[in-house]
């Protein structure tokens, strides 16, 4: 918003999306799932911007909020110089041609009762553009572009293979040569052999039409392969944003480090030398997220400051300005996470929503804390104490 940058296609500032939790009565305090909680990022024209995170991190909600499938709770979205975060669905309509989505489950995102050709023709029908023979010609044109047989017009989705279905989804998104395509885990429901095909197709189309992608995935290796920049998301917030190569060589945030340690390496020697970090516990509830750094209950490096202070996304340890991480104790290059133990009490590690305990209790030794936190029974009794 501050400096108009022609290179930036999409700018998201402090985006917040809460979902109300079904409450049991009128007088009870309403609770919210903090699905996306203050996310800022910008996507440049022609790049692929990857977003990675675990299930429940809010990455899909972020994608859908940017596409304005949801009304957002707060924040702003600037697309191609236009602030769209408060647009009504009606006002969004013309913009829908510019922002498209490709969904995870090609079976679920194609209407099972309609013919593939008619589904791909939907954008034309919805925006009242091409009709009759003209529409069919354009649909067949699209089908050819994405590598579908243009004569394969009539089957219903159930009669197609997984690859054909996802190609149909891509064709539909491509109808108006949109400026931005949000790919929400476009390949994670596909067989590995087909994943590569679809990813190559997306890359070819990007080169051909100068498309910009937001590529959401939980699989780091896929994201690394396709993205120019990558954002890591945890519990509704971004923990680290960096050019893909930087991120994969020097991850600053321990969460990124933990994710990376799970990626299989092509070199077996290297693979053996590396220790895999197993994160402790489950992702905390997004209804009452932890205080401070949201990752602190599971972080091997967690210190009292992580509980009390929310970290800011900024360059760490002399990184370039494009590489930012939200961490009080960023990792140095070559640092091994497995060497660290949190310096906060076990009680704080599993607690949710800022219910801090007194200093005395925080003195518990870290070894005991580790044991407590991993034992399922302990976690349960912690829960009861609240």
């Amino acid at each position, binding site marked *: 918003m501050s400096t108009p940058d022609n290179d930036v296609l999409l700018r998201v500032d402090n985006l917040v999306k809460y979902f109300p939790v079904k409450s049991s009565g009128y007088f009870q305090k309403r609770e919210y799932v903090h699905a996306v909680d203050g996310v800022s990022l910008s996507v440049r024209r022609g790049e692929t911007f990857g977003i990675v995170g675990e299930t429940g991190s809010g990455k899909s909600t972020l994608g*859908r909020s940017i*596409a304005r*499938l949801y009304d957002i709770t707060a924040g702003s979205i600037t697309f191609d110089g236009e602030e769209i975060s408060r647009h009504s*669905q*009606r006002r*969004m*309509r*013309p913009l*829908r*041609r510019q*922002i*498209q*989505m490709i*969904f*995870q*489950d090609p*079976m*679920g*995102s*194609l*209407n*099972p*009762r*309609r013919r593939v050709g008619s589904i791909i023709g*939907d*954008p034309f029908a*919805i*925006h009242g553009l091409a009709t009759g023979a003209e529409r069919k010609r354009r649909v067949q044109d699209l089908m050819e572009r994405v590598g579908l047989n243009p004569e394969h017009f009539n089957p*219903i989705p*159930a*009669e197609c293979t997984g690859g054909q279905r996802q190609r149909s*989804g891509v064709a*539909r998104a491509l109808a108006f040569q949109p400026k931005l395509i949000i790919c929400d885990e476009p390949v994670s429901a596909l067989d590995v052999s087909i994943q590569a095909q679809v990813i190559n197709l997306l890359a070819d189309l990007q080169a051909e039409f100068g498309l910009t992608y937001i590529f959401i995935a939980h699989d780091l290796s896929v994201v690394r392969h396709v993205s120019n920049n990558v954002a890591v998301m945890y519990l509704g917030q971004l923990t680290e944003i960096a050019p893909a190569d930087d991120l994969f060589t020097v991850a600053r945030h321990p969460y990124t480090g933990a994710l990376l340690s799970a990626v299989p390496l092509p070199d077996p020697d290297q693979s053996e030398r590396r220790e895999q970090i197993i994160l402790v516990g489950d992702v905390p509830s997004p209804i009452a997220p932890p205080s401070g750094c949201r990752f602190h209950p599971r972080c091997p490096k967690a210190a009292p400051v992580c509980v009390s202070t929310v970290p800011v996304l900024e360059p760490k340890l002399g990184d370039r300005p494009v590489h930012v991480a939200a961490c009080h104790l960023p990792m140095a290059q070559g640092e091994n996470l497995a060497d660290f133990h949190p310096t906060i009490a076990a009680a704080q590690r599993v607690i949710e929503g800022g219910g801090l305990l007194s200093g005395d209790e925080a003195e518990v030794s870290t070894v005991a804390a580790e044991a407590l936190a991993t034992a399922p029974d302990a976690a349960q009794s912690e829960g009861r104490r609240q």
Partner: protein
Amino acid sequence: MSSSPEVRGRHAGKPAVTSGSAAGTATMELPPAAKKIEGRSPWRLALERLRKDRAAKVAAGTITVIVLCALLAPLIASWIGHGPNQQFIDTGLDAEGNPLAPSGTFFFGTDSNGRDLFIRVLYGARISLVVGVLATLISVALGTFFGLVAGYLGGVVDSLIARLIDVVLSIPFLVIAISIAYISHPGFWLVVFVVGVLAFTYPARIVRGQVISLKEKEYVEAARALGAGPMRIMFIDLLPNVVAQVIVYGSLLIPLAIVSEASLSFLGVGIPPPTADWGAMINDASGYYQAGFWWYLLFPALALLITTLAFNILGDSVRDAMDPRGAGIYE
């Protein structure tokens, strides 16, 4: 009134039975088998199952015969030479003016006006079928519309439609029906309208439940991402996915509509005389049959019973065929 499935699907009258399974089937629009075996649509699978169902075949055959009777009634009448409302004062009544028993001239005997019961029963099939089908079309159309709108839009619209359904269900069907018939003048279209409109509650509830589970699907989100408005999503994207359920329940509404029509005519507020109608004929017969004129009651009653039975058997089979989980998986 309540959102529990059992309460939602209930009614004092008949189709309540199906409610239990309705809640269960709502989430499944494709049998899992259809995903694996490509090229076999659920429709075709259902048809194959129906073909193996003997009861369904007998019921379908019976319905075909009834439809033929209704279609050919004028032909048969002119061939025999007896009109449906023609009174045979001399040949159709005995010396004391009472109905005649079945004979070679009058296959089903005559009624108290000396009319040919056989021909009248044939003509009665026309009213029953036409009212049954037209009323069902009305209730299915209305119910699908309200169900789609309530389920997709949710919120206030949903609550309003739910209360509307509650109100319609709160006053017993026959009370509303005879009241309406009393205020305006009874006639064919009024009966179609009353029976059709009042039965919209069943398809409305079923479609609403379906839509609520379907609207979470990604293809609905995909349509919104393309810029489709609520109308297009409801009628182009969701409608084709509820049609199967609607057809199943629609087929069970036909016998209900036929009985409703016959009941109204039986109470004298349905199809006005002298039109041949089974319900009205049974009412006419009620003053006679106990005095030995059994045929007067038997034939219209049998015709009505066979018709509703055939439609119910076929409807049940169609439902079982579309949702095979209902049968025999517990052993």
